[in-house]
């Protein structure tokens, strides 16, 4: 297809814009990695030295001889990291289970389906601060102490569950109910149909929902400030430290997190793509829909 002058102009403009978007998205990571090998108290570009001391500080937070810069915050990031991982895992599992059950129920028509749909999404639609503040006010009123495992978990699941719910609705709306009917006609019990037919077909959706639950919880700050009590998650700790002073240790931690999450996501997408191709061979008609669900699930 030959392009008209106007189309060429649009191509040039949109291509430049897209390149700029990628630059803005990735430049911070590159800068962060560069600065993590610096040593000075305040990040300066370009860094004049190359050292692993920031990573050492990260690994040995109680080795005070490493912390030689005046006023450098001594922070042990391991307890917050552990807390964030535990909370993220719990949130992902709970949110996915709740979302899957609700989405299965939504395959049927029932009274109040419309209002209940919005009610289930309420945790997603409410601006973050309000969710945290309301939860705290409610907890105070009923005498529930603010901890990560009480108000924190309640809130993280309420925030991430709608994402899983949407992912499951997208998958369920694009799949052929007749496979389930076939299994039922052939004598499988309802539970057996679910376990051997429905769940395997929904596997990519389950993975997507778990991913949403885990990453959104791991990264949560806007909603968390009033509900965690004395418990500090990793992003909250990072924000608190950056309020004081951003040192290369923060960049070292950031680089580690970025590298690990890029690696995990690459694995996930490779797995998703392989799974898609496998199902695409079995059912050529479904190819388009599964391709379509991937970016939406990723960007919704």
């Amino acid at each position, binding site marked *: 297809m030959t392009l008209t002058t106007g189309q060429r102009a649009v*191509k040039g403009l*949109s291509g430049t*814009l*897209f390149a700029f*978007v*990628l630059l*803005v*998205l990735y*430049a*911070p990571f590159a*800068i*962060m990695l560069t600065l993590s090998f610096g040593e000075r108290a305040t*990040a300066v570009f370009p860094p004049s030295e190359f050292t692993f001391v920031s990573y050492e500080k990260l690994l040995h937070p109680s080795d005070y001889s490493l912390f030689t810069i005046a006023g450098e915050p001594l922070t042990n990031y391991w307890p917050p990291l552990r807390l964030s991982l535990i909370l993220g895992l719990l949130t992902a599992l709970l949110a996915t289970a*709740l*979302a899957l*059950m*609700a989405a*299965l*129920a939504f395959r049927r028509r*029932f009274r109040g389906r419309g209002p209940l*749909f919005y*009610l*289930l999404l*309420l*945790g997603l639609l*409410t*601006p*973050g*601060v*309000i*969710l945290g*503040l*309301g939860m*705290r006010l*409610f907890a105070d009123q009923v005498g529930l102490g603010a901890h990560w495992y009480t108000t924190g978990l309640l809130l993280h*699941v309420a925030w991430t*569950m709608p994402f899983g719910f949407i992912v499951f*609705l997208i998958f369920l709306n694009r799949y052929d109910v007749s496979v389930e009917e076939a299994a039922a*006609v*052939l*004598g499988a019990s309802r539970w057996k149909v679910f376990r051997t037919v429905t769940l395997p077909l929904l596997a990519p959706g389950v993975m997507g929902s778990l991913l949403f639950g885990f*990453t959104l919880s*791991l*990264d949560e700050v*806007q*909603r968390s*400030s009033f509900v965690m009590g004395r418990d500090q998650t990793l992003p909250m700790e*990072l924000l608190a430290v*950056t309020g004081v002073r*951003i040192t290369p240790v923060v960049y070292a931690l*950031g680089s580690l*997190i*970025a590298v690990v*999450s890029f690696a995990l*996501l690459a694995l996930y997408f490779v797995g998703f793509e392989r799974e898609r191709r496998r199902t695409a061979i079995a059912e050529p008609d479904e190819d388009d829909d599964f391709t*379509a669900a991937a*970016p*939406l699930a*990723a960007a*919704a």
Partner: protein
Amino acid sequence: MPTSMRSPAPPRLARDAPVPAVDHAARLRARARGRRCETALLLAPALLWVVVAVAIPLGMIVWVSFWRADGGTLVHTFDLSTWKSVVSDGAFRSLAWQTLKVVVIVLAIVATVGLLSGYFLARFVRSRRLQTLLLMLAILPFWTSYVIRIITWQPLFGNRGVLNWLLTTTGILKEPASAFLYNQTAMIFAMSSLYVVFVIGPVYWALSRIDDDVVAASRSLGASAWQTFWRIEFPLAKGGLVAGCFFAAIFLFGDYATERLIGGGTHPALAGTINAIAGSGQWPTAAALSVVLLALAAIVLGVFMKIHDLRREL
């Protein structure tokens, strides 16, 4: 069922089942009851969770906004004094206005950039593989830490950051400029870059589903590329565009960390103010401002739903 499912005997079909001696109407009624019961049981956990963790807390916010703070103590009455002070205070009104302004500006940027980027991917990148790869590249950073993305802003745009280093070493600037950080423009730029991903994905997805023949037909029937875009491609991509803006708006209304770290608190918005006021223990004022923010968010999200019912995208 006497024989196990593992036995080599052919599986029993439903029609082989012995017909029980009950009338069909009663069986159908019982099955319908069973279905309703199952639906209720499947829904109950999620609904219960949402009611406890979201609906009741939102009700609490509305309730507390009618309380009053007398010095350090909360008075659990029902009066309008908190609301009166919020409504009459010009500072709070301009706060609401600022919040809406920033959200609308960022949404406009995100929609334009996202639409053009998605269009570029779907129309001008030839290979499907490369399209997927580029889209994944654009989406990946969203899945990493948001906090880490905003704290790298300082070394990028700060006084001694990369941009200033580039500009001073190339001689464009004589001295490092402080214009790139801690102001509203910097904040809008940062927010746009954080949330543009929401639009690129759905727009690309919607555009890439349009059959090439549809576009070709439009062109061969004499429509210009520009007409084809507005009459065919844009209406089909609208759902994705609205969905992206919808999600971006959700994140924007609650984002106070970007405002604080990159805006430097120079142009506070409602979310940050609520956080600060609640942090100082003035629950009623924070609750009243929350109701205002909630109303703003409901209006903006409602407008998006009016433009395009997103339930059709599910």
